[in-house]
C-alpha cells in the first residue's frame, strides 16, 4: 500500500476540490465555467484510472498478450466528455447572451442591476 501508487487518485481529488472551489467562490461567470470544467475533468480521470489494469495492454486482440485494460470506463467517459463539451458550449452561449443583456459577466454587478429595477 504505497501512497505514490495512488498518484492518479490524488490528482483527481486535488482537481475536484480546485474545480468545485472555483465554481463556488468566483463571481465571474466565465471563471465559474472554467471551474466546472476542471471539476468534470477530474471525474474523467477517475473513470480512466479505474479502467487501467496493471501491466494490461490496450484492449486489442494480439498474440502473446493475455492481460488487457478494461475498455468500458474509457468508452463511458468518452460519452461524458461529449456531454461536458455540450454543457460548456451552452454555458458560454448563455454567458455571451448575459453579456449582451447586462454589459458585464460579474455576478455582483448583475445582481446590482437586477435589484435596481
Amino acid at each position, binding site marked *: 500500500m504505497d501512497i505514490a501508487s495512488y498518484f492518479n487518485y490524488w490528482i483527481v481529488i486535488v482537481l475536484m476540490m480546485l474545480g468545485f472551489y472555483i465554481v463556488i467562490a468566483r463571481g465571474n461567470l466565465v471563471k465559474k465555467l472554467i471551474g466546472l470544467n476542471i*471539476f468534470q475533468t477530474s471525474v474523467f480521470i477517475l473513470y480512466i484510472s479505474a479502467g487501467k489494469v496493471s501491466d494490461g495492454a490496450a484492449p486489442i486482440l494480439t498474440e502473446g498478450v493475455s492481460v488487457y485494460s478494461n475498455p468500458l470506463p474509457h468508452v463511458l467517459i468518452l460519452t461524458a466528455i461529449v456531454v461536458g463539451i455540450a454543457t460548456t458550449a*451552452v454555458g458560454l452561449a448563455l454567458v455571451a447572451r448575459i453579456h449582451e443583456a447586462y454589459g458585464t459577466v460579474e455576478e455582483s454587478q448583475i445582481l446590482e442591476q437586477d435589484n435596481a429595477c
Partner: protein
Amino acid sequence: MLSHLPILPVLLPLLGAPICALLRKPVAAWLFACTVALLTFAAAIALLAQTWQQGVLSYALGGWAAPWGIEYRIDLLNGLVLTLVSGMASAVLLGGRASIWRETPEEKRSLFLVAFLLCLAGLQGIAATGDAFNLFVFLEISSLSTYALVATGRDRRALVAAYNYLIMGTIGATFILIGIGFIYMLTGTLNMMDLAQRLPALTESRTAFAGFVFIIVGVCLKLALFPLHLWLPGAYTHASSMVTVFLAATATKVALYVLIRFSFSVFRLEFSTLALPLETVFLTLGIVAVFAGSLVAIYQPDLKRGLAYSSVAQIGYMVIGVGVGTVIGLQAALVHLFNHALMKGALFMALAAVVYRVGDGKFSSLRGIGREMPLTCACMLLGGLSLIGVPGTAGFISKWYLVVAVADREQWVLVALILAGSLLTAVYIWRLVETVYLGVPGPRQVPDSPAGRAEAPPGLLAVSVVLALANVYFGFDTRLPVEAASGAAESLFAAGQP
C-alpha cells in the same frame, strides 16, 4: 412492432427533434411536434396497460442481452412516470401554442419546439432505462435542453436563471456520475437489476456508501430538495409560461423517480445499514422544505414565483413519503407525484392564460382578473384547492395517504406538522383568491388587451379546464394513481426480499 414498444416513448421524440429542426415554418413544426408528443403519449399508455397485465417488460437495446447491453426495463412505476410526462408534454404543446407564439420571436419558434422535444426525450429516457450510465446520459440530454428552454424567457433575468440552473444542474449530474463510477468500480456492472443483486453483499463497503451518497446528493440537486432548491424559483419564474408548466409538472417528478429507483431498487434501502440515518435526513429535510417553501411563498409579490416556492414545499411532502420508508409511505409519495403534476399543471396553465392577457404574473397585475376571466380563474381556484388538499380534489387523496402512512409509523408530531403545512398552503392560496376576485383592477400593461370580459385563447383555456377537471376527477376516481402507485411500491419492496 409491439415487441419494440418499450423503446418507442424515448425514440419518437428523440428522432422527432432533428426532423422538427428541418421544418422552418413554425406552424408546421408545431403540428409535427404535437403529433410526436401524442404518439409518444399513446405509446406510453399502451406500455402502462401492458405492464399492468404482464408485469415487468424487458427490452434489450440493439439486441445485446443484459447485463452487457443496455436494458430498458418497464414496470408499473416507469409506466406511470412515462405516461405522466408524455401526457403533460402533449397537453402543453396542444394547448400552449398561443402562449409560445406570444413569448417567442417568430424565427425561434421551431427551435423552441426542438428543444422541447429533446427535453421530452431526455425525461422519457430517464424513466425508461434500466442502465445507470444510460440514465446519466438522458439526464444530461433533458438538462441541456431545459437550460435552453429556460433561457427563452422574455426577461433578461431568464438568462441568469438558466445560467444558475446550468451550474447547479451540472454539479448535480457530475455527482451522480461520480457515484455511478464508484459503484461500477466496486461491482463491474451498470445494469440496475444486476447492481441490485451484487450490492447487498457489499453493505459494509465504504465505497458503496460513498457512491450512494454522491448519487443521492446529485439527485436531490435535480429534485430541488431544500436546501438544494436555489435554482428552482428563478428558473420557474423567468422561463416562458409553457416551459414553467412543463418543468413544474414533470422535471422534478422524474428526479423523484430516480431517487426512488436508486434508493429502493438499486440500493435496497430497507435492508442496508444506511437506512436509518437516511430516513431521518429525508424526513427532516422534507418537513423543513414544506415550511420554508410555504412561508416564502406567502410573501412573494409575484404569483409565478410564489407557486415555484410552493413546488419546493410540495417536493418536501413527496420526500417525507419516501423517508417514511414503508410500502404505504412510498405509495403516498407516488400518488402525490402524480397528483402534484396535475395541480401545478392546472395552476401554471391557468396562470399562463392570465399572463397572456395581462403581461406578467405579479399580484398587482392580477387584481380583479377573476371578473374578466371567470373560467380561467375558476381553474386556478380548483388547482389551488387541490394544492391545499380540500376533500373532493386530487390533493386530498395524496395528503390522506401521506398522513395515514406517517400515522402508521406513529409519528404524531410529523402528522401535526404536515397538517400545519396545509394551513400555510391555504394562506397563500387565499391571497391568490383575494387578489383575483376581490381586488380592484389597475391599468393593464399589454396594450392590445381588450377591456371587459375576455377569456384566454381557446387552446390555453381548454387545457386549463381539462387539467382542473382532472384534479376533481382524480379526487373521486382514484384507481389509476393509487393502484399504479401501490403496485409499484409493492414491487419495489418485493424486489428487495431475499
